[in-house]
């Protein structure tokens, strides 16, 4: 237990003396004696070797040895070795938030590059330094829209958005007197007629939020949605939420449809599924709303000698200055996940980003075609990227068990989200081979 503690007993003795006290204990005299904990915390210490053995055992209790078609908010993509290797450099990993720009230009420039890359991918004006994850980024996007919308108090939220994101948004919004009205989905797509009916006679709406692609994998008709929002409401902001932004390698980005805030989850970019975290919430906006944005921003400036430099900026929005009037309470964000994403996107580059998206889409289209050829499984949605929803007439859980014993995880059951028992979301990425897909389809063919 002394390996993390550099003081020797001799040094402790000298320092105690220098402090003019009789013992280390007396340095704790400011804790009233009746409040002191007298025992020893009941946790046994382990050597490094014991520690590794202990965690190896736990790690092996997880079954990660399957070919997986799981998506639904967490994605399995190949991560080039450079991402882990470069991001593990201690100068990045063990640094604090860049409060001293002179010795944090590395972190600050990475954030500036990240802000650029994400803005370009989404075709949005500005992007912040990250949020905790896609769910909190979504919740914060609604809160930001409320700040822009001032007195207006109602937000329309599509039921096609990831159900966990909706849950988190409800948690964030419910004590602030904001009304959420849900737009139903029809065939796993936002029902645009319902949207039109909800928005046309309601002048209290400050925002409309849809998934793009949505939770079921459907590419929402964003041009129709955008047109309806603009037609009926001059002030309402249009918000998108995306859990698989790799789609924008081939999918028209939100900025092209006049979206005001594009938020979502960028775990796909160089971060592991990691049992759900740490992930990377991205958050982009039109420049007109800049001063209402939550989170940290890095800007380019000059130093005293006229040299280009990067600093945290527009901090007058933030909690350490504005306190209870801040745009958000966020302080620590997901800096290191953001670094991984930046390195990952640099590695892919402009051509690689598009090509990887094409590979994902091609494999998924192949899987859809094959699945539709089976008797008991049908793909429900039409326009999709690398994820789609399948309905089955068989007992899904029995089918899933069967798949797992053959080394395949077939997809995430919608029942897990309190939705349809006969449907599951299948995600196909570059990590799945044609043979993997054929195997899945074969298992489907055999299911009764």
């Amino acid at each position: 237990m002394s390996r993390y503690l550099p003081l020797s007993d001799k040094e402790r003795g000298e320092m105690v003396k220098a402090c003019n006290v009789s013992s280390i204990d007396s340095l704790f005299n400011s804790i009233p004696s009746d409040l002191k904990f007298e025992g020893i915390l009941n946790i046994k210490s382990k050597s490094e070797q014991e520690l590794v053995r202990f965690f190896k055992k736990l790690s092996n209790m997880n079954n990660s040895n399957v070919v997986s078609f799981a998506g639904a908010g967490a994605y399995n993509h190949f991560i080039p070795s450079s991402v882990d290797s470069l991001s593990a450099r201690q100068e990045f990993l063990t640094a604090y938030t860049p409060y001293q720009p002179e010795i944090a230009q590395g972190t600050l420039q990475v954030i500036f590059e990240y802000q650029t890359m994400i803005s370009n991918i989404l075709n949005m004006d500005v992007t912040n330094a990250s949020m905790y994850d896609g769910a909190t980024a979504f919740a914060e996007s609604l809160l930001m829209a409320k700040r822009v919308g001032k007195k207006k108090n109602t937000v329309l939220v599509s039921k096609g958005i990831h159900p966990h994101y909706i849950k988190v948004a409800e948690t964030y919004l419910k004590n602030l007197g904001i009304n959420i009205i849900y737009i139903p989905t029809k065939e796993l797509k936002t029902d645009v007629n319902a949207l039109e009916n909800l928005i046309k006679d309601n002048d209290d709406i400050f925002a409309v939020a849809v998934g793009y692609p949505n939770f079921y994998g459907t590419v929402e008709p964003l041009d129709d949605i955008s047109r309806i929002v603009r037609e009926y409401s001059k002030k309402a902001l249009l918000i998108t939420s995306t859990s698989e932004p790799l789609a924008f390698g081939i999918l028209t980005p939100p900025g092209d449809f006049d979206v005001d805030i594009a938020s979502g989850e960028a775990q796909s970019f160089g971060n592991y599924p990691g049992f759900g975290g740490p992930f990377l919430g991205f958050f982009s906006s039109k420049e007109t709303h800049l001063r209402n944005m939550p989170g940290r921003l890095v800007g380019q400036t000059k130093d005293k000698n006229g040299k280009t430099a990067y600093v945290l900026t527009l901090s007058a929005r933030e909690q350490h200055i504005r306190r209870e009037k801040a745009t958000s309470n966020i302080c620590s964000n997901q800096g290191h996940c953001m670094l991984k994403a930046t390195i990952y996107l640099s590695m892919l580059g402009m051509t690689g980003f598009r090509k990887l998206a094409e590979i994902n889409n091609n494999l998924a289209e192949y899987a859809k075609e094959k699945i539709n050829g089976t008797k008991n499984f049908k793909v429900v949605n039409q326009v999709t990227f690398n994820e789609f929803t399948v309905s089955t007439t068989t007992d899904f859980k029995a089918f899933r068990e069967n798949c797992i014993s053959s080394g395949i995880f077939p997809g995430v059951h919608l029942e897990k989200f309190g939705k349809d028992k006969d449907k599951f979301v299948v995600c196909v990425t570059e990590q799945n081979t044609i043979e993997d897909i054929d195997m899945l389809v074969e298992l489907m063919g055999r299911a009764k």
Partner: protein
Amino acid sequence: MKSLRENEKVIFNYGGAGKSGVDFKMPDLNVKSSINDKYKRNTPAKLPEVSEVEVTRHYTRLSKMNYGVDDGFYPLGSCTMKHNPKVNEKIAGMEGFALSHPMLPYSMVQGSLKAMKILEESLNEITGMDETSLQPAAGAHGELTGILMIRKYHEKNGNPRKYVLIPDSAHGTNPATCTLAGYSVKEVKSDETGCVDVEALREIIDEDVAALMLTNPNTLGVFEKNIKQISEILHEKGAQLYMDGANMNAMMGKARPGEIGVDVMHLNLHKTFSTPHGGGGPGAGPVSYRSHLSPFAPTPKVQENEDGTLVLNWNLPDSLGKVHGFYGNFLVTLKALAYILALGGEGLEKSTEDAVLNANYIRESLKGDFNIPFKTPTLHEIIFNDKFQEEYGITTMDIAKRLIDYGVHPPTVYFPLIVHGSIMVEPTESESKEEIDYFISIMKKIAEEAKTNPEILHEASHFTPIQRPDETLAARNPILKWKDDENEG
């Protein structure tokens, strides 16, 4: 630190058309995309065009323009920049954890659930609380979770109440959190020791108060000696005591919040429990709470079946709901568990002792050279300010930048707001006596330089890639992304 190059261009300025750092094999398939027409992207996203080699060089050189805790002393007050053990990274990178998908059946993720459970139990032991939720992703997120639990508790009793009380020395996230939770903030004055003024509290408390948010030890490093009394005053009116556990490094094994009147608190695993700060996260901010708040904790909760297998319980009718897309920053929480198990109960207590000893040793050694605005005994951190240096025209900012010249990270400056020109030093237990003595010697040197050569302080830092960037310019004319034609460098 540090790069031999003066400048590092943004990555978009490297490379050239068609280059990529990854070679993909396009599968041999003849399929048609369902994405067509207006949904098919016309112009590819502008991203860098560089090989693996250029990516490696660029980010390696950028890293050398950073200072990490592995470089040396990093005494940021209230940030607890302690050593980040290397084995923790290895553990979080184990495939079974890193590749574990959050929506798999529980039978496939027993290892992850078990790790969560052991960490929850360990944190309960350390805090003296009954239960812990690992869902919050950072300290401020933990604050929000804790305050929302309190809100649900009051709602269940018929009235959510209106106010949360916050001492004027509190961190900015505390008031920002209250607003987000739908509460108004009322400030409580600190007394001359930086502690909550109990009389002021008595005057302000009524049945509209939902809770008091208390940082203990407070931001001045002083233990709230009246915490039990404060708790009683609150409980008498049905209000709850929230503890901001940012400074838990000062009390591990010495006092347990659950035994001294605290109802709910958060911990910063990236502070007290050694997980790396990553240049701004990811952190983790678990909340630990007493059992009366249990029904209101976030969904889902890890639960043990009779046969010993673990599941997540999503059916919690009084829960505040979810605060995170899944279960929190799981891989970060693993690192904290590795740290706790490496040290054990005795080691954690020893860490606290060394952290407090280091802070007091610095205090004693520098008290003649720098003013100490609060004379009260302090635990893990010590606040100085620039009062002695004022007559030479030297500010806290000058002192901070000069420290960089001597190769250490400056302390937290100008916080807490109630101290003019605050210099807040938190050495943690991770520093050798040699490193601490070095810091003391350069601080003394700087105090001397302030008298004899103030110019050299005004001009600091001298050896960094950039010097005193213009923050006003950055805010007045925000350049928040690289554009082909507009940007330099």
